[in-house]
């Protein structure tokens, strides 16, 4: 539900401004991969707060459980074993919606108000308006939204917009035992990340850095990575995510151009008739065939 306390910065398939009188500070979740121990308390807290119970899956011999995001699993830990400088590194990334400043899902969505971006930066799905077309999946540069087999609606992390609206932190942040998950204003989180990065660089991770990809206008979920130069190491975190040029074409310039072209063809036809009149069979021809 669109909470009145969260002002709306943009709304899917809507060409007029949304209620946006109040200005809210941008919020962000910071995921410090270097202090994550992969305990999955965040996954459990997400299930609990959002009242989600995914189907019990199968043990496939790895720690990833569930194996992928689903309509009922809005965050999952992804584990990668990587060899760096002759040493084994166990890289664990909490995956879920990145809450892009320029959300591909919202751009692609054809249903008015099914996806909103609040002034605080949270991108939220409004399932009562969702028609289940899956265009959000086509638009997302991070492969996050999932369509439910049960109700045909799309689901993903809400960044606990309901909790944030009343001044609480998201459930996953509350549950994290190591402080790997932090929440606050985006500015605060960047400052905090800078401290963590300085510490990591001092300890030999020269390429430590913040993942706040500019290709999607920055995100409201950011990572501190030990190898910020190679985000792909972290289970294919995209190095430079952007809204695909195909999606930008399809949901950008194509819409007004095609609508205008069709309008012109229809109007052109009408005015052709008005100017030239009908193409009738001539009287001479009618006489000719009578003979």
């Amino acid at each position, binding site marked *: 539900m669109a909470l009145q306390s969260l002002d709306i910065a943009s709304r899917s*398939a*809507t*060409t007029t401004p949304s209620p946006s009188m109040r200005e809210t500070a941008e919020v962000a979740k910071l995921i410090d991969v270097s202090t994550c121990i992969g305990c999955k308390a965040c996954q459990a807290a997400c299930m609990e707060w959002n009242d989600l119970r995914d189907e019990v899956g199968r043990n496939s011999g790895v720690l990833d459980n569930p194996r992928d995001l689903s309509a009922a699993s809005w965050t999952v830990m992804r584990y990668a074993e990587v060899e760096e400088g002759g040493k084994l590194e166990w890289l664990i990334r909490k995956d879920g919606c990145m809450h892009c400043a320029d959300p591909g899902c919202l751009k692609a969505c*054809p*249903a*008015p108000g099914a996806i909103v971006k609040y002034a605080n930066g949270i991108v939220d799905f409004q399932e009562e*308006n969702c*028609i*289940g*077309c*899956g*265009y959000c*999946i*086509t638009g997302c540069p991070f*492969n996050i939204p999932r*369509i439910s087999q049960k109700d*045909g609606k799309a689901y993903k992390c809400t960044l606990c917009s309901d909790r944030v609206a009343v001044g609480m932190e998201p459930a996953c942040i509350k549950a994290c035992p190591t402080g790997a998950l932090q929440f606050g204003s985006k500015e605060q989180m960047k400052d905090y990340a800078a401290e963590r990065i300085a510490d990591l660089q001092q300890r030999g991770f020269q390429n430590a850095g913040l993942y706040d990809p500019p290709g999607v206008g920055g995100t409201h979920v950011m990572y501190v990575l030990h190898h910020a130069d190679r985000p792909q190491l972290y289970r294919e975190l995209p190095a430079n995510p952007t809204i*695909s040029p*195909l*999606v930008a*074409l*399809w949901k950008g310039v*194509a*819409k*007004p151009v*095609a*609508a205008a*072209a*069709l309008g012109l*063809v*229809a109007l052109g*036809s009408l005015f*052709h*008739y008005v100017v*030239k*009149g*009908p*193409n*009738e*069979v*001539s009287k001479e*021809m*009618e006489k*000719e*065939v009578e003979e």
Partner: protein
Amino acid sequence: MNRDPRDLQRYTAPERANHWLVGICFILLALSGLALFHPAFYPLAQLFGGGTWARILHPYIGVVLAICFAALFVRFRALNVMAPTDWEWLRRMREMAAGDDHTMPAQGKYNGGQKLLFWIMAACVALLALSGVIMWRAWLNLPVDLVRVAAVVHAAAAAVMIGFIIVHIYAAIWTKGTIRAMWYGTVTRAWAKQHHRAWYRQITGDQR
């Protein structure tokens, strides 16, 4: 039903029924497709019972159109092979549109414009059916790069098809005595001789 016994049979009942099935499917697809394409057209989804119903029904109607169009294609393929006079007709279409058709080359059952439309429709339906299946999330979950290409192809082919169908319908309204061919199958001799002289000569044996 027999009106004027001198009228010429242009379409058989199965041909007309086939065309109407395609036409009905096309109108439903255009309305629901436009609703999903641009927010300005989203209210059209109400004709189908809301956005979710429009999304559910659109691809199934598409399957029906693809099958019916394939039948139409088989029926009329041979009659729509482009000949040199067709290209000449197309080059001189401006004169035709200006209302001066007296000097246009004699046309068979179909003129160059109708034949070109036939092949454009065949290409559009093929592209729309293929890209549409790729985008059908209710049944398939294909690689996202492929789905993105399909989305662009689907929108582009649909815009081209809707544009040409507007012209197709307008041409039938503009050329008086044409629409009855699709209602009950016959045209007058004068209509045939004026617009499709070669066809008129062929079926009447009147060589004037």
